[in-house]
C-alpha cells in the first residue's frame, strides 16, 4: 500500500533536512516545499531574506536531490509582507513588542504552506521544529521538544486541533546533537550549518534601524519619567525601547535604570530601579487553547513569557472566552506586552495568548 504523502517545509537547515530524511526513511511519499519570504532590500544581505537566500535554496535542493524527493519553492513574499512584516511594524508602532515568528507560523506556515501542501495531495505537513505531537484520547496534544534546550513549542502555541492533526515534527523527539549526527549519517551537507534566525526579514539584526527606515512616523520623542512621575530626560520614540531594557536609555543615574513600561497614551517612557521592575500578574488576550476547550475554573500551570524565558509557576484564571489573568507565585521581571504568554503543565503546552 502506498504511504501518505507528506510535505516537508524545508529551509536548507539541518533540522528540516533531517526531518525530510527521517520521513523518507519511514517510507512516506515525501516532497519538499520552501517558502520564499519578503525581506527588506539592500544592506549586507543583498535583499535576500536570510532564511531563504539563494544559498539556502540551493542547499535545500541539494538535500532534496540526495533524498531523491521533489522540491519546490513557493513565492509567499506578498503574504509574508502583509501578515508578518506589516504586523511587526504596526505592533511596534503601537508600543508593543511583537513576536513575528508566531504570526508567521499562524499565517504562513500553517496558513499558506499548509493550504498549498494539501492542494498538492499531502495529508500532513512536517517541519523541523523541536516539539512533539501526541494523541491523548481523542485530543491531539502539543509537547515540548525532547531536547529542552531547543524546545520551540512556545512559537507553536497558536496551533489548534485541526493543525496538529495534520502536522508532524520528526526531529522533536531527538536532541539537537543527535540530529546533527543523523545529518552526517544520512550524508546531508548540512550538519554544520547555523540555525535559522529570528527576524529573518531584517537586513541586519537591528530592529531599531528597521523602524527608523520603515516607520519613521512612529518615532515621536517624548518624556522619560520614573515611577513617581519625575521627568528624567527625553526618549527618541517608544518603539525603540523594550521592557527590561537597561542599556541605551540615555540618562545617567546613581543606580542603573530599567524600562518599566511604555505609556502609549501620553507617549511616556517609564524607567526605574531594578526592584520596581517585577510584576506578579499579567493579562493575556486572544488566548488559544490547543485542546479547543476553554477552562472555566482557574488552573495551575507554568507560564512562559518569552521564547527564551523559564516557565514560572502560576494560576491561570479565565476572564472570558479569550482572555485570562495569570497570577505568578513570584515576581517576574520583563513582562512585555505584545509577547506571548504560553501555558504549560509539565511538558504539555496548553496554549497561550498575547500579553496585554
Amino acid at each position, binding site marked *: 500500500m502506498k504511504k501518505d504523502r507528506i510535505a516537508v517545509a524545508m529551509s536548507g537547515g539541518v533540522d528540516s533536512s533531517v526531518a525530510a530524511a527521517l520521513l523518507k526513511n519511514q517510507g512516506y511519499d515525501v*516532497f519538499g516545499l520552501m517558502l520564499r519570504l519578503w525581506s527588506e532590500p539592500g544592506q549586507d544581505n543583498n535583499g535576500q531574506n536570510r532564511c531563504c537566500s539563494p544559498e539556502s*535554496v540551493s542547499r535545500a535542493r541539494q538535500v532534496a536531490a540526495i533524498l531523491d524527493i*521533489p522540491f519546490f519553492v*513557493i*513565492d509567499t*513574499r506578498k503574504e509574508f509582507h502583509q501578515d508578518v512584516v506589516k504586523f511587526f511594524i504596526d505592533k511596534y508602532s503601537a508600543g508593543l513588542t511583537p513576536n513575528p515568528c508566531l504570526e508567521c507560523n499562524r499565517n504562513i506556515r500553517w496558513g499558506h504552506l499548509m493550504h498549498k501542501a494539501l492542494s*498538492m495531495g499531502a495529508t500532513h505537513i512536517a517541519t523541523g521544529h523541536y516539539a512533539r505531537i501526541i494523541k491523548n484520547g481523542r485530543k491531539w496534544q502539543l509537547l515540548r521538544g525532547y531536547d529542552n534546550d531547543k524546545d520551540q513549542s512556545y512559537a507553536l502555541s497558536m496551533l489548534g486541533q485541526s493543525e496538529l492533526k495534520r502536522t508532524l515534527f520528526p526531529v522533536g523527539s531527538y536532541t539537537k546533537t543527535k540530529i546533527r549526527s543523523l545529518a552526517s549519517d544520512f550524508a546531508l551537507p548540512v550538519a554544520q550549518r547555523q540555525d535559522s534566525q529570528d527576524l529573518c526579514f531584517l537586513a541586519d539584526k537591528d530592529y531599531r534601524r528597521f523602524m527608523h527606515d520603515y516607520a519613521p512616523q512612529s518615532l515621536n520623542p517624548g518624556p522619560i519619567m520614573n515611577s513617581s512621575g519625575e521627568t528624567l530626560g527625553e526618549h527618541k520614540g517608544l518603539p525603540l525601547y523594550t521592557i527590561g531594557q537597561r542599556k541605551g536609555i540615555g540618562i545617567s543615574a546613581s543606580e542603573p535604570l530599567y524600562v518599566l513600561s511604555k505609556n502609549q497614551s501620553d507617549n511616556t517612557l517609564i524607567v526605574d530601579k531594578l526592584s520596581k521592575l517585577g510584576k506578579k500578574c499579567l493579562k493575556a488576550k486572544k488566548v488559544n487553547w490547543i485542546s479547543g476547550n476553554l477552562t472555566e475554573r482557574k488552573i495551575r500551570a507554568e507560564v512562559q513569557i518569552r521564547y527564551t524565558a523559564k516557565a514560572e509557576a502560576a494560576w491561570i484564571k479565565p476572564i472570558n472566552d479569550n482572555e485570562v489573568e495569570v497570577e505568578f507565585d513570584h515576581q517576574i521581571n520583563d513582562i512585555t506586552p505584545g509577547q506571548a504568554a504560553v501555558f504549560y503543565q509539565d511538558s504539555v503546552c496548553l496554549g497561550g495568548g498575547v500579553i496585554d
Partner: protein
Amino acid sequence: MDKHIYMDYAATTPVDPEVVAAMLPFFSNEYGNPSSIHRWGQRADYAITTAREEIAGILCCEADEIIFTSCGSESNNLALRGIALEARELNKGNHLIISAIEHPAILRTAQQLQKHYAFDVTILPVDQHGFISPKDLTNVIQPDTFLVSIMYANNEIGVIQPIAELAAITHEHNILFHSDAVQAAGQLSLDTEKLGVDLMSVSAHKFYGPKGVGLLYAKRNTLSHSHQTGGSQENGLRAGTQNVPLIVGMATALKIVSGRQSHDNSKMKVLRDKLIESVLDNISESILTGHRTCRLPNNASFAFEGIDGNELLMHLDLLNIAASSGSACKTGSPEPSNVLTALNLSPKLSLGSLRLSLGRDTKDSDIEYIQQVLPKVVNNMRGTL
C-alpha cells in the same frame, strides 16, 4: 509500477551512449593539450581537428569557420560582443537588431551593449504566432546597422523563423546576420549555405551530446574580435585550452543526430500532434502557443487560463512528469517570460504556460499517460482556486 516521463528535451537531453564511448578515451588516456608540441598534443589536436571537419561537413562550411566554445550562451555572447567590438573599432556602425523572443543569452548581451557601451538596439516584435515579419525587419534597418540576430527556432514555443529570407534581406543592406540555432540543432537543417547565415550558435546538450560545449559558426572574415582573451586557441577567437573529450562528444552527437534526424522527426511529429490535439480538445480555455505547423517537431507548448504555470509543474513532477514552462523559475517568482509577453497573451494566460518537449525516446504510452492525467490536474487546480 511508477512511470517516469521526461518531457523536457528542450531543456536538455540525455547523452547518447555512443557519444559517451567516443569521449571516454580523451579523459585519462589521450589527455594531451592540443596546443602542445609533443605527440600527446598532436594526438589531441588531431582529435579536435577531425571533430571540426566532421562538423563542418554537416554545417556545409569550412573547418576553420567553426569556433569551439563552452556552451550556446557563450557562442551567442561571442557573436554579439565580438561583432560589436569590431564595429566600434572600425566604425562600421552602432546599431544592432534582435527579436523580441530571443534567449536571454542574446537579449541580455544586447542590453549590456546598449547600457554600458552605448550601442543602439532595436527589438523586433513578433506576431501572435511568434513570427518576425520580413517587412518589419526591412523597416528597422538603419544606415548604421551592423548586425541582425534572429533565432532559428524558439526554445519556448518552438516557432521556426524564415531564416533564409531574413538573412537575404539583411545582406541586401550589407549587414551581418547571426542566428541562435541552439534549439534547431538536432531537428532542422544546419546547412549554413542554404540558410545564408554569417554566424550561427549551436550547443551540444540539446542533441544528445554533453553539456558544457558548443560552437559558433563564423563565416571567414566576419569575426576578428574575441570576447575572451588569452592564448591563441581557436584562431585567436576563443582563448582557453580546448575541452577535447567534450568536443569529440559534440561531433559524434551531431553525426549521429544528422543520420537519424528525419526518422526521429517524423516519429515525434505524430506524437506531438496527438498530444496537441488531445490537450486542446480536453482542456477548456487552453491555447497552443507558437504556430500550429511551423514549429519544432518536438515542441508542444500551451497556455491555460487561470493556472499558475509553476504550480502546474509541481503537480506534474509529483506525477513523475518532467516538464517546463515559460515562467520557469526554480526559486519561486513567477513572471511571464519575454517570449510569452511578446506574443501579447493576456497576463492570465501567460502565467499559465506549459512546455512539453519530446525526444527520440518518447513513447506512445508516455503521451497516453499525459493525455490521461493532464486534464485532471488542470481541472483540479482550477477547482481549488
